[in-house]
């Protein structure tokens, strides 16, 4: 599929690096297309378990490191508007649901995006992913149906294809491969082992690794028939 020209893209994820693996090629493509992209990242990934081996970070220094990594990744993708919302890793689902939706709604009102990208509630595994997706859906659900922006969701639970069907939005992001790899590598504290495990697969053009890097997929959010306010 080719990228439609958007008015404004709003990407909402809870953790630095959530944008890197499955979405950064899409982000870079929109940026390169001249579309303003805002990335709202809810936490600094304070609870990340990778501290280096031997450790180069502590529980207390990790958020400082990850804040810089997030800035580096955003810069690699050309994101002009990076917002860190100051919530805490692993606590999103315990926040007040309406207030969280208010936060999302306020951003949507301010930016008037034509496309929002977040996690698919019910199919995104990590409790913070789920809570973020739910809050975005709740906020978008407040907008009359005919005025809603497109809502493209990332899903990767073991049952996602079984229950949602195959992803309806598929892009090949080969043309921005370098930017995507730079974004992945920018999250050094979390990705250095993964990148090390690639070995020479990038240079040797390993088909499996390239397919993983080049293919990005999203599910258009399916609004429930009956209660569209969620």
């Amino acid at each position, binding site marked *: 599929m080719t990228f439609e020209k958007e008015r404004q893209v709003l990407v909402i994820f809870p953790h630095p690096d959530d944008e890197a693996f499955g979405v950064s090629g899409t982000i870079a493509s929109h940026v390169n297309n001249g579309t303003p992209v805002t990335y709202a990242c809810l936490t600094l990934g304070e*609870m*990340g378990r*990778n501290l280096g081996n031997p*450790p180069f970070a502590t*529980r*207390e220094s990790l958020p400082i490191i990850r804040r810089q990594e997030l800035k580096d990744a955003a810069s690699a993708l050309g994101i002009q508007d990076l917002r860190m919302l100051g919530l805490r890793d*692993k606590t999103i689902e315990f926040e007040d649901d309406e207030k969280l939706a208010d936060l999302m709604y306020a951003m949507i009102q301010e930016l008037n995006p034509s496309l929002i990208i977040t996690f698919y509630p019910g199919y995104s595994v*990590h409790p913070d992913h789920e809570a973020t997706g739910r809050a975005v859906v709740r906020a978008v659900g407040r907008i009359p149906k005919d005025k809603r922006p497109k809502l493209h969701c990332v899903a990767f639970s*073991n049952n996602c294809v079984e229950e949602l069907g195959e992803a309806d939005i598929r892009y090949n992001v080969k043309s921005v491969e370098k930017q995507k790899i730079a974004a992945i590598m920018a999250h050094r504290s979390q990705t250095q082992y993964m990148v090390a495990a690639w070995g020479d697969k990038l240079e040797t053009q390993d088909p499996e690794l390239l397919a993983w890097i080049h293919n990005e997929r999203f599910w258009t959010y399916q609004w429930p028939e009956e209660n569209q306010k969620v």
Partner: protein
Amino acid sequence: MEPIIQADVQALINSYANEDVYLHLETTNGAYATHFDESFFSVGAYIRNAFLQYELGKIVGMGPYRVGLKLSIGWVYAEGLTHYEQDAKGRLLMAGLDPAGKLAVALQISKTPFE
């Protein structure tokens, strides 16, 4: 952080005894454990900025280590601790890192609140 030197850590634990301290205690097996292995029973617990005093604190074991803090009306303990550091803010940061370097447990003691 460096691998735990038991005598060093014991001296640090002693230095916070009978004083108001803020405590961080955490265990985790990672949010994806059940995603990768559906038979895995995922558990974790987390408390940040518990405000307390302990009258006695000990580090025990041959490594990984256990640390227990005796309170006037209760207890705090953690097991599996492997690494420590007293950071620039004077906080005692202890963690248990698994063989891959991933944090599995943390016990931290500070005279000022954690951010």
